[in-house]
């Protein structure tokens, strides 16, 4: 008994993908602004040698100068051009935050999904390890891991990533437990879907929403962690610039040149805001029930 019709694939109205992106950008100004800011930032990072008017390491006698035509954002305590250092520090800061979050999710996500999906003793074991890691103050843990791995930006961000992972694991674990009990998961199981496919097709897409928001928050947190670790001398090594390190240096001169802190501080703040803004908008955009019907 074949009910298959002969001939071509029957057309159905297809969703319009390209216009959807433009509609999203038009509807959400904050997301559009965040995206433009981040694109500019990445562009400036890639083209730092051409964007920056000076070498970030070039010193002059003109120290702690206020902004002027020659030095757009002034100079620091060694007479280096702040704008040039900011531009050259951007790649390090972006690399640091992305690396930390990547490591955090790639450790946290699998363990969290495993614990949430399998339950039982796996869940108990993973949860206790998570609790143990979370019981250590994060910065102390990061310092300890950096100490073990060796000083440097990459190692310190691996440390930050490891510190991030238990929080992410705990979040995805709870989400997985919720989604695992949904009827559509049961339905997929009666179709004979294998467990790995079930996790990838149904559980992850439905559990991931809070993770997306959390990741954008963590990108901002990683930026600050990079600053802290560089401040402590565990991250980017002088004289190479990073935003955190610039902030730490400016902090030392807070009483005689408070304006020094504005440039790196605002750079960190706006980047963090852009990450958050984009993440929040992305989350609601990925949720079909939230999308305005057009």
């Amino acid at each position, binding site marked *: 008994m074949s*009910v*298959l*019709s002969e001939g*071509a*694939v*029957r057309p*159905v*109205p*297809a*969703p319009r993908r390209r216009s959807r992106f433009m509609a999203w950008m038009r509807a959400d100004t904050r997301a559009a602004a965040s995206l433009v800011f981040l694109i500019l930032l990445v562009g400036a990072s890639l083209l730092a040698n051409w964007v920056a008017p000076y070498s970030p390491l070039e010193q002059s006698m003109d120290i702690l100068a206020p902004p002027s035509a020659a030095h757009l954002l002034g100079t620091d305590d060694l007479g280096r051009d702040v704008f040039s250092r900011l531009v050259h520090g951007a790649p390090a800061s972006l690399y640091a935050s992305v690396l930390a979050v990547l490591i955090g999710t790639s450790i946290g996500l699998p363990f969290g999904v495993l614990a949430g999906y399998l339950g039982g003793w796996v869940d108990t074991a993973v949860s206790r390890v998570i609790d143990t890691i979370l019981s250590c103050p994060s910065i102390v843990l990061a310092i300890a891991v950096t100490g073990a791995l060796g000083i440097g930006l990459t190692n310190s961000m691996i440390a930050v990533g490891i510190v991030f992972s238990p929080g992410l694991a705990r979040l995805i674990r709870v989400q997985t437990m919720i989604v695992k009990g*949904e*009827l*559509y998961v*049961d*339905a*997929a*199981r*009666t*179709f*004979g*879907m*294998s467990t790995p*496919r079930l996790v990838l*097709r*149904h559980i992850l*897409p*439905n559990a991931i929403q809070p993770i997306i928001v959390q990741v954008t928050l963590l990108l901002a947190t990683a930026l600050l962690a990079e600053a802290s670790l560089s401040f402590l001398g565990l991250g980017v090594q002088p004289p190479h610039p990073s935003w955190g390190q610039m902030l730490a240096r400016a902090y030392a001169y807070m009483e005689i040149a408070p304006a020094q802190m504005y440039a790196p501080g605002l750079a960190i703040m706006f980047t963090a805001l852009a990450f958050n803004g984009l993440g929040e908008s992305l989350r609601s955009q990925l*949720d*079909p*029930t939230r999308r305005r*019907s057009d």
Partner: protein
Amino acid sequence: MNARATTPIVSIDDVGVHFPVSRGRTLKAVDGVSLDVMPRETFGIIGESGSGKTTLGRAVVCLEKPSAGRILHAGIDPYGLSSRELRRHRRGYQVIFQDPNAALDPRMTILKSIREPMDVAGELTVPERHNRAIEMMERVGLSPDFASRYPHELSGGQKQRVCIARVLTLRPELIVCDEAVSALDVSIQADILNLFAELQAEFGLTYIFITHNLGVVAHVSDRIAVMYLGRIVEIGRAEDVVGTPGHPYTEALLSAEPVALPAHLRGQNRVMLQGELPSPIAPPSGCRFRTRCRFVQPICAQTEPPWRETTPGHASACHFAGELPMMSGAELHPLKAGQPGRTVETGL
């Protein structure tokens, strides 16, 4: 073909489904249930909330593993298969859930949801899957325009049609309808029930129809099992069970069904159940229904009632089945009794 007609498509043998609860106790949601479902019949399972009917239905489609006894699918023990074989085998045994909203992944378009079983099976080419999905949508009365919509854009009845189209793509032999119409409007209920009947004739389906609504189950089922607190208390042909109930619980269920008659035309024949459903963690001794039974005797607390067959194929788990002065379906239901057929009327 002849051998298949005599082999039950689902054979449930002394099955129990137990869940551990706190302090080492177990909740026996299903406790020692045996029944056979024959190919192409509609088997109704009725009981109130907490009677274990949904758990039994989930066990039939291998969503719960029986803690005791076994369930055979056309003579095959699904848990004796390798996991790969089980995934293949279970495609023939599908379920339609009460809440069509929760049964569809909110992130998948309707077309994707309907195609999913075929994508998992991986037997047809992609254009064939697409075409069959669209055909099934049309077969269950959905316009193909819905294909690229998301579940939240559809009504409950439409979503239930999507769920039906989805399981039909697998050409199943058995479909467990777990309260499949309870969440829908009354007018939609009748449409969906009629659709079920048409599809049964067209695809040669077997249904296990789980519901708390006796009116629905009596009209669509060939045979009925009445569940109470994890056990079956009465089993038989639909007209026998509804016409001459053998168990006091069935009588009470019949009586609880609303009658579409003005009060002065209704008789005084009402049997009101007293009290709450006892806890399935600590069920009453002897007959489980004795705490609410109007005919309760001392023996009911002492020994579990054996099965007593009042007429061939109609049995009740009651010490006094066939001897009690119970009301017949006709007395309880002046409108319905005498006409239990396969037709479905609106306004059940």
